């Protein structure tokens, strides 16, 4: 029985001003693009602006600008001065946080509560954290006077646009690299607003260049002979294509790719906290999270109890206008992604799993998918093996802890995993055995600039965040090699 209904609490969008058309940000100024494509608000399909479709000439201009800035300014600047630019950027992001949050929610479809409380503050924190590294690189673990790679090509996904930009640009600049960044096709607006932040921070021209576009723009960037280092976050399929493309070259790469994380709940888990963790694990950001806890592994004794509490909790998830401060689950980012989620969910039905969603009214326009769980899932089902990247949870059960570990590790991915138990020794036992780069024990989906993030196996190469992430943008001084 509902006692109180939530009244709408809409965040005003008047704080953002969106231009009808954007060009690329190259060498400190906005260059006009030759072709443009629309970018829409996935919550209502309104066209927000038109984004330039970068071609190989645009990439060439951006890489050249980054090279000149690297050779003439950035690589020669003392670390303490580079660091001060990053501190400036962090501060401006904090000052303009509301603007970034609203713009992110409009362009991406994620709830304002998340863009306001997580994406934007964490983006600022990433710049602040890495700013402090810029003049302390001798202590990063690569010996004295480590060197940057040069020009870093960075390609980011649409699920955390400004946050992924910060994960990429902050360590690259702190280490002394210059950057050409390509935002995702559907979510370029906060990156273009970030270009204005670079101007406000008086960052030297060419240190950060942003070329918008689609997959062909990204491929042109990867293939450009003038880049030294690639950092990519996105699908495992594209990550493998990048690994093949750079095989004949000396280019370095870090790849943050897909996942199919197991969230393992033992019989001695704290059930209420665990239900919150399951919800956060799969419904945070509409499940558009590479490290989402998309495979729930329940120990048989407690499976019924957890599932019934989970269903009660899921019925309270508020789906709707992302700008409403009460909204928990926003819009699916694109019609393509919605089609993928629908296709995989359909395969779950067809392969014999049982689908359940709470009653919820979805808006008539825009792209929406209700919070969904599948029970009776086996390891052979597509929904247990393939990344859905949506608000869809596959539930499996296990009897013994050994069986849980085997099922959890039975995937080519290895990005993250969750484990729930009140018994410390069991938590550590499981954490040792789970083949994943990030283990959340009695919590899920926590991120911090000081905490390394990245996967085992086909979830990628290298780490981002912390000292480990920083070293991906550095190489040892030549004299340190025998």
């Amino acid at each position: 029985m509902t006692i109180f209904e939530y009244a709408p609490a809409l965040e005003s969008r008047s704080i953002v001003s969106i231009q009808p058309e954007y060009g690329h940000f190259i060498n400190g100024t906005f260059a006009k693009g030759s072709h443009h494509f629309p970018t829409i608000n996935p919550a209502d399909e309104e066209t927000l602006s038109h984004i330039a479709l970068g071609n190989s000439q645009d990439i060439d201009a951006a890489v050249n600008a980054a090279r000149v800035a690297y050779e003439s300014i950035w690589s020669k600047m003392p670390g303490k001065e580079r660091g001060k630019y990053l501190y400036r950027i962090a501060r401006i992001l904090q000052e303009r946080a509301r603007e970034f949050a609203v713009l992110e929610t409009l362009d991406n479809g994620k709830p304002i509560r998340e863009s306001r409380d997580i994406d934007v503050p964490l983006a600022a924190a990433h710049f602040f954290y890495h700013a402090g590294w810029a003049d302390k690189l001798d202590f990063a673990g690569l010996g004295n006077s480590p060197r940057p790679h040069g020009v870093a090509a960075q390609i980011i996904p649409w699920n955390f646009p400004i946050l992924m930009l910060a994960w990429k640009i902050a360590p690259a600049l702190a280490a002394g690299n210059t950057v050409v960044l390509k935002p995702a096709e559907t979510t370029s607006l906060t990156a273009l607003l970030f270009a204005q932040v670079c101007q406000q921070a008086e960052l030297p021209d060419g240190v950060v260049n942003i070329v918008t576009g689609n997959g062909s723009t990204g491929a042109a960037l990867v293939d450009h002979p003038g880049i030294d280092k690639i950092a990519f976050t996105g699908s495992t399929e594209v990550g493998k294509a990048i690994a093949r493309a750079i095989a004949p070259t000396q280019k370095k790469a870090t790849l943050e790719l897909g996942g199919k994380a197991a969230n393992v709940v033992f019989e001695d888990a704290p059930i209420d906290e665990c239900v919150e963790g399951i919800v956060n694990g799969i419904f945070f950001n509409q499940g558009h999270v590479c490290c989402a806890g998309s495979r729930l592994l329940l120990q048989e004794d407690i499976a019924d109890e957890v599932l019934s509490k989970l269903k009660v909790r899921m019925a309270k998830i508020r789906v709707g206008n992302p700008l409403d401060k009460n909204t928990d689950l926003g819009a699916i980012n694109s019609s393509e992604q919605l089609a993928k989620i629908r296709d995989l969910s359909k395969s779950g039905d067809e392969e014999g799993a049982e689908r359940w969603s709470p009653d919820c009214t979805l808006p008539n326009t825009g792209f929406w998918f209700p919070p969904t769980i599948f029970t009776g899932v086996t390891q052979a089902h597509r929904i247990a093996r393939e990344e859905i990247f949506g608000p869809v949870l596959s539930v499996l059960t296990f009897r013994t802890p050994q069986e849980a570990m085997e099922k959890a590790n039975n995937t080519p991915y290895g990005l993250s995993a969750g484990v729930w138990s009140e018994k410390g020794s069991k938590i550590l036992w499981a954490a040792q055995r789970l083949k994943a780069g990030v283990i959340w024990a009695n919590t899920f989906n926590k991120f911090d600039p000081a905490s390394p993030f990245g996967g085992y196996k086909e979830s990628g190469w290298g780490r981002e965040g912390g000292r480990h992430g920083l070293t991906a943008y550095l190489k040892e001084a030549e004299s340190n090699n025998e």
Partner: protein
Amino acid sequence: MSERLEVKKTYKLYIGGTFPRSESGRTYEVQNSAGDFIANACLASRKDLKEAVVAARSAQSSWSSASAYNRGQILYRIAEMMEGRRVQFVQEISQSEGISVEEAEKQVVTAIDRWVWYAGWSDKLSVLAGSTNPVSGPYYNFTIPEAMGVIGAIAPEQNSLLGLVETVAPIIVSGNTCIVLASSRAPLSAITFAEVLATSDLPAGVCNVLTGNKEELAPWFASHMDINGLDLSGIDEPSLLSEIKTSGAQNLKRIHSFPESQNPRRILAFMEAKTIWHPIGV
């Protein structure tokens, strides 16, 4: 009294702690620098490699969960066992590589010392590459380096024993298991080295040694889906390197070549950083 006829050694492969011949039945002639016959070595096949990977995978979990102290002692034991066979190694290397006894002696003692150096790293890696991370929030957060899994390695052609040791030691000290392809031209000391491994308390399957043709076998290393990483220090040809890296992308193998012989970076390249979060509260 008639002169005693020497009993010569049959050089075989080392897979899962045993010394089988190649399942293919193939061998090739190993010659000294003057072109004279020394011995026949096994020409390992794709199937030998597959069996070696199975052995390495089944040994991996228990080897990586052995205590660091235990792994360190076993690696040190390898140095002890090699010391006892110095004369044999020197003779084999000088003969097959065509180098002087003094040069061979230097290579052997350096190889022994490399084991001592790498053995000492087993219980210091998490100090070097681990951290506790000061996250904003009530969480205890720490990062530890972990063994990556099964690693394939192509040992250098030159310095057949030292190159092999510098390839294998950094891979296995952290808890990985490996399959190493010995120098094609001078493979014999690698098999004698396998006899050292077999008597050093190193669990079966942790290090598997193949001899054969790297142009034939390296692409199978690259495409094997149960190998997590590759050390290609023994491959110089850019076209072969590029082919292997392209094929290795199928399961995103971590692929490295190392210019340095004694550097913890060689160990850490085949480890994964694992970060663990736990709430703090009452």
